[in-house]
């Protein structure tokens, strides 16, 4: 359904978005990031986990572009290998939130009433806590590790999608085509998922793009705190945490993965902006 939506947009609006250099830049960053994530072995010059005691804490050079760490591991290779973990985070920490949020938000938005009231209280309860604190609490209960981190983020994060989806569906309900679907005798399922949802989903998709950038940031934060990915797995947060002790003598250890985080986040944001433009023009 969503796919159809993308393909059926008028051609003119595609062109407008594609002409924006920032969107192209974002797309370029994102495609590069995905390639690095899918095929790290093609791009990384060294094995990310092999110690080399002859090259310890070397500054960036032609041999080791991003320098080496205290065990002689090549930082460039580790940052590249971390792409697969961090891009995976961007996807898995958000995709279940997206799916649950769209589903729940569409239903409570459409039916309202008691379900909506219960949902409203749930939202209130969850958003009054700082997001990170709540996720850390859930991870602390479940134990550290990537899978538990995804579970924790999904438990908390779907609320934001559902809230957005609910508001959009309620906005769309004001249009007569929703009532028209009703008077045509269509089922609620058909009205919600075929008529309302495709019209209401754009802001949610855009939010999803930004949220993927935030998920990388969150995943790295948890990794840094030792609650997400576990060493020796190469993950940007873990890499930054490992470099922390040598920040005065080997600055590249923390800076390089930091730049990777910023760059990837930028890519997602620019693409998100581009998609907003792409989907905005109608008529």
């Amino acid at each position: 359904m969503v796919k159809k939506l993308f393909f059926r947009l008028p051609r003119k609006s595609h062109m407008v978005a594609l002409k924006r250099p920032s969107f192209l830049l974002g797309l370029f960053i994102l495609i590069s990031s995905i390639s690095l994530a899918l095929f790290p072995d093609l791009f990384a010059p060294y094995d990310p986990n092999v110690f080399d005691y002859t090259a310890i804490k070397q500054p960036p050079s032609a041999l080791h572009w991003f320098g080496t760490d205290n065990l002689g591991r090549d930082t460039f290779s580790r940052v590249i290998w971390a792409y697969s973990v961090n891009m995976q985070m961007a996807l898995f920490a958000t995709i279940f939130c997206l799916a649950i949020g769209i589903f729940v938000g569409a239903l409570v938005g459409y039916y309202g009433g008691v379900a909506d009231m219960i949902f409203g209280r749930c939202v209130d309860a969850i958003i009054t806590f700082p997001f990170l604190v709540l996720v850390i609490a859930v991870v602390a209960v479940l134990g550290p590790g990537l899978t538990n981190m995804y579970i924790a983020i999904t438990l908390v994060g779907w609320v934001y999608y559902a809230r957005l989806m609910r508001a959009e569906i309620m906005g769309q309900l004001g249009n007569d085509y929703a009532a028209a679907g009703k008077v045509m005798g269509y089922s609620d399922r058909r009205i919600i998922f075929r008529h309302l949802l495709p019209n209401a989903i754009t802001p949610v998709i855009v939010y999803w793009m930004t949220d993927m950038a935030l998920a990388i940031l969150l995943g790295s934060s948890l990794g840094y705190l030792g609650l997400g990915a576990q060493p020796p797995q190469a993950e940007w947060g873990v890499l930054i945490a490992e470099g922390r002790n040598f920040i005065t003598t080997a600055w590249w250890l923390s800076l390089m993965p930091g730049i990777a985080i910023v760059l990837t986040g930028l890519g997602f944001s620019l693409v998100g902006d581009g998609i907003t433009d792409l989907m905005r023009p109608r008529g």
Partner: protein
Amino acid sequence: MTQSNSALLSVKNLSTSFHVGGQKLRAVDEVSFDLAAGEVLGIVGESGSGKSITLRSIMGLARRYGEVTGEVMWQGENLVTKPEAQMRKIRGKDIAMIFQEPMSSLNPLLTVGVQIKENLVAHTELDKKARHLRAIELLDLVGIPDALRRLNDYPHQFSGGMRQRVMIAIALASSPKLLLADEPTTALDVTIQNQILKLILDLSHELGMSVILVTHDLGVAAQTCDRLAVMYGGKLVEKGSTRDVLRNPLHRYTMGLLQSVPENVEPRTPLFSLPGTPPSLMNLPKGCAFAPRCAHAVDACVETKPPLEGTQHQVACFNPTQPPVGAGGQS
């Protein structure tokens, strides 16, 4: 009341109330009327008089938000108490409805062809090819040129009038016996209004379809309707053939409405307008809802609600402009 047995649709004592902040608002109050097959009935009244809610109550759309009581008899069944799942089979198939805003009543993301065929999928047994042919036929029927090509167009590629035609095409897809039109021409240009009204009227004659046309425009009602019902404060105040009601209005409110239509007046002369505003549903008067604005109100008007009296031409008024025929002659 004259043809309660042969009537296609028979509405008896239909009331719809909404609960707002602990208060019960009666938007439709004991409305009764009959509709014969092929007849065009107009319901006229100001904004907030309960016209649209009446239509939505007939369709079963109001009960999700409020309390609907009374009877809507359709082919021997009472639609008010009919379960939602069964109502779905009637909606769009036997009873169709079109709305005021052609701009927003089509889904902007689907082509009109898809939207017409969707109704056919839901209510007919036609196969894919037959549905395609029927969709072309329908667009032809409502006067959209180059139907085959326009099937693949999106709603935003149509003008307002054309969109209303598309809406009518969708509504007619499964050959309904009754069309409920909720101010179908209000959002359109005057010239387009006439075309759409003529279209609805022609289709009604051609297909033998009954129409309930809700409007606040007396001119529109006069052009199209066989019979008129005037609504005020949720109640029917006058009902009769269009000719009788417009030529010979009995209720003071109908009289006022007719006087507010500027006709043959000199330029720059002040126009007649009814004094006061329609009552809020929050505090409807105890007696006749129109009494506070009525220059001819008698004592009884303030205390009791006047019943609808008469045979052919009915009126709910204690002091009508003239006694209704067959109503014991009190005035």
